[in-house]
């Protein structure tokens, strides 16, 4: 996720003055945000994948309904059960440990896993967990990164040095290894910080870890942008009017970095979902019996050739979700990034 091209500002006048599209030029009354929405609407691929993401969210929300239809729960074992498929009785898990393939019926629509659990039900509940972690972690990342970036960029000096060196140190750690180390250590004892106490199997553990890991990727570009913006006339004017640093940061600067945050957010969500899957695959993310696509992949990989549905199904969901977020995110970036607009307008 590069931010080299993200010197995005809501002040789109340079683009427009450079000769924007006729539609834009003929609508001088439109705000930059309205222009961005208009551009986004023209990007069919972004809209289709954005819609796909919302369909996935809707499916995740419908997980309890499907569990009712399938008459099970995501953690329920059916190891020794037999069901009727096409009029024939079939074992959910055979004696030699091979689970049933997709039945395309109410029960075991997408087959069972090696514990005899309904893959479709686990997939949908896993979607809830993955999306919860992805979105919440991205929000945490954004909140912390914006705060740190603004402080470092606005105050400069020791504040900047302290925050930037801290980010440098965090940058030096391989993110997955850091996540595994934190995830494994918190999984057993939980997390206790003052009055805050989170049990080891809580979804908040991987959420906080992934949220914290992501900060470094957003805080630096925010800082860079604030460093540039703080020298602008509108900031000087606010300062001359006696505005406090807090007011300048949140009243003047924050709206000006909002587009960057908007561009980054879907990408952060996608990245967080992937990180969650990786951590869960390695046993350091979502703790059992809660399902996640990462744990489902991990459980299925040992039966890759006899029960490929165990890896294909969660893998496909992961690809679709991340792809939809990335394409939609790219669309948002194209809509908000004036240089991207210029690029599009080249003959």
């Amino acid at each position, binding site marked *: 996720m590069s931010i080299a091209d993200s010197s995005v500002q809501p002040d789109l006048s340079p683009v427009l003055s450079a000769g924007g599209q006729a539609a834009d030029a003929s609508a001088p009354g439109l705000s930059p945000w309205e222009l961005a929405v208009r551009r986004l609407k023209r990007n069919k691929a972004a809209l289709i994948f954005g819609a796909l993401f919302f369909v996935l969210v809707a499916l995740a929300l419908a997980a309890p309904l499907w569990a009712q239809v399938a008459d099970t729960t995501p*953690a*329920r*074992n059916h*190891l*020794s059960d037999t069901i009727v498929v096409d009029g024939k009785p079939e074992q959910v*898990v*055979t*004696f*030699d*440990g*091979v689970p049933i393939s997709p039945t395309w019926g109410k029960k075991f629509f997408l087959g069972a896993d*090696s*514990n*005899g659990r309904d893959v479709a039900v686990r997939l949908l509940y896993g979607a809830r967990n993955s999306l919860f972690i992805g979105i919440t972690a991205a929000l945490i990342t954004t909140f912390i990164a914006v705060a740190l970036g603004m402080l470092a960029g606005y105050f400069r000096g020791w504040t900047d040095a302290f925050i930037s060196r801290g980010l440098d140190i965090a940058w030096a750690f391989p993110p997955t290894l850091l996540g595994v180390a934190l995830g*494994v250590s918190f*999984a*057993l004892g939980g997390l206790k910080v003052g009055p805050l106490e989170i049990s*080891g*199997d809580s979804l908040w553990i991987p959420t906080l870890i992934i949220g914290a890991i992501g900060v470094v990727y957003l805080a630096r570009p925010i800082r860079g942008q604030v460093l540039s913006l703080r020298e602008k006339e509108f900031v000087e004017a606010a300062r001359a009017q006696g505005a406090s640093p807090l007011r300048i940061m949140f009243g003047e600067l924050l709206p000006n970095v909002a587009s960057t945050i908007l561009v980054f957010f879907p990408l952060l969500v996608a990245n967080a979902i992937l990180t969650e899957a990786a951590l869960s695959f390695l*046993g350091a993310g979502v*703790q*059992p*019996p809660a399902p996640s696509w990462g744990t489902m992949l991990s*459980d299925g990989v*040992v*039966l*890759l*050739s*006899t*029960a490929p549905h165990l890896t294909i199904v969660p893998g496909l969901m992961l690809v679709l979700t991340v792809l939809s977020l990335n394409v939609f995110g790219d669309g948002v970036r194209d809509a908000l990034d004036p240089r991207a607009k210029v690029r599009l307008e080249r003959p």
Partner: protein
Amino acid sequence: MSRTLRGVLCLSFACAAMFGLAACGGDDDDGGGSNDGGGAASEVGGKTGGKITTAYTSFPDYLDPALSYTQEGWQSLWTVYTPLLTYKHAAGAEGATVVPGLAEDMPDISADGKTYKLKLRSGLKYSDGSAVKASDFEHSIKRVLNLESGGASFYSGIVGAEKYIEDGKARADIPGIVADDATRDITINLVKPDGRFPYILTMVFASLVPGDTPFENLTKNPPPGVGPYKFENVRINRGYNLVKVPDFNVADQQVGKLDTIEIQVIKNRRRQTQDTIQNKIDYMNDPPAPDQLRDVRAQYTDKRYQEFVTNSTYYYFLNHRIAPFNKPEVREAVNYAVDKRSLARLFGGLLEPGCNFLPPGMKGYQKVDPCPWGDPTAAPNVAKAKALIEEAGVAGDSVTVFGNDEPESKSLAEYLSDVLNDIGLKAKPRIVEGSVYFTTIGNQKTRAQAGFSNWFQDFPHPGNFFFLVDGKSIQDTNNQNYGNVDVPALNAILEEADQNADIDAVADDYARADKLLVEGGHVVPYGHRKLTVFYSERMNFEDCTVWHPVYNLDFTNLCVK
């Protein structure tokens, strides 16, 4: 006592290869047992000579008899080193019988059970040609103790052994071992009688090495031993060769058939299986990968692929000291609710469902029949379990079920958690990293309520299983009686039986202990692990497979067609 065994074995390759017996060994020991005139013996038929390649998933922990504590290590070391006492190279009960190794005869045990007298055979030579001396035994034990081997605790019952460890002086004397090189007499004095001591003398740790063997890990360059094979070309983490010792000739001791056995480390079990199918390797030590097992079973119905039940027990512990399992009804409910058929499926069929705590191949095993909790091969009685939970007034009580991150253990913890939820408790699994799992649940501060546990024998003696449920073995840390089982009647039986060196005399006592443990519902035993052998077509698997109850596949009997 054998905490390290559990740790090392279970981590070394996912508890997938251990010590075991072939209750279903078929006609493994069908050989002629030809004994060439009191000289070295060959147990089964098949031609001699040739070289084979075998695949291990990981390199053994050590190739030093003082240190190795894994099945892979012992399987090879047993062919290179011979202790004073050993086992016959045979399958089934015959292979579990202690016989003289480098000692002339079985030990002369004093009436109080504390003194063991043995005599070293005459004319013994190590593989490098040097003479074997009686004092080498003391040196070998000193190496075990001084190197802080996982097996050191087995020998701490020798008089002066504890002090030897405390002092840390390698060359110091162990007063409890008296050896006379001239007469070849060896006398061992114990602090207190221990009926398991003859078995402890059979362990690879007690193998004789030359008296000048350094006090260091010699895996890179293993010391010479007295055995049918010797190590050559050791490549750490890559492999090694077992090469036949041409002049090995110890009365009644097995000679090897193959000239060379090359052990290669191939980490990927799928590749091992493919290579075995394609005859690129001749034997794979671990079972085929789970997704290949069904095909291998279906395709190789002859003896090229075989399964054997090991001397192992898989069970759930239920902590007697912590609610709700401090109530007998709750423990009974869990025993009623666990479906052993389901658990066998989690092992891909490589688990023999059972009701006993002792495995079928162990002395003292008497099938608890009928099983008080229902037929292990039939559906569980969940309704009864639910009623017991209601009766105990613990419905809705929270339970954490412990398991480790090895695939089977994780699935087993998730399964039990689901079962407990089904019968009215409120359970969730907690998965702990494998390397710290047993120390975590063995720490009383963890307050582990229930969870996965297993045990593979160190030696074929029931006492090696029952210490897991003996009230005397409860400790604050490194506890292996995870359920804090402390049943006075059981403790009393074990106290007496453990002191008797005559295993046949106390076999019934151990059977009584097993019944008491099972019928009391103190733990939830559910089965015994199976292991496999899978050969290439080059191998003479019809005549040369001996599944030894302690060392698994016996390398000395392997032969090619």
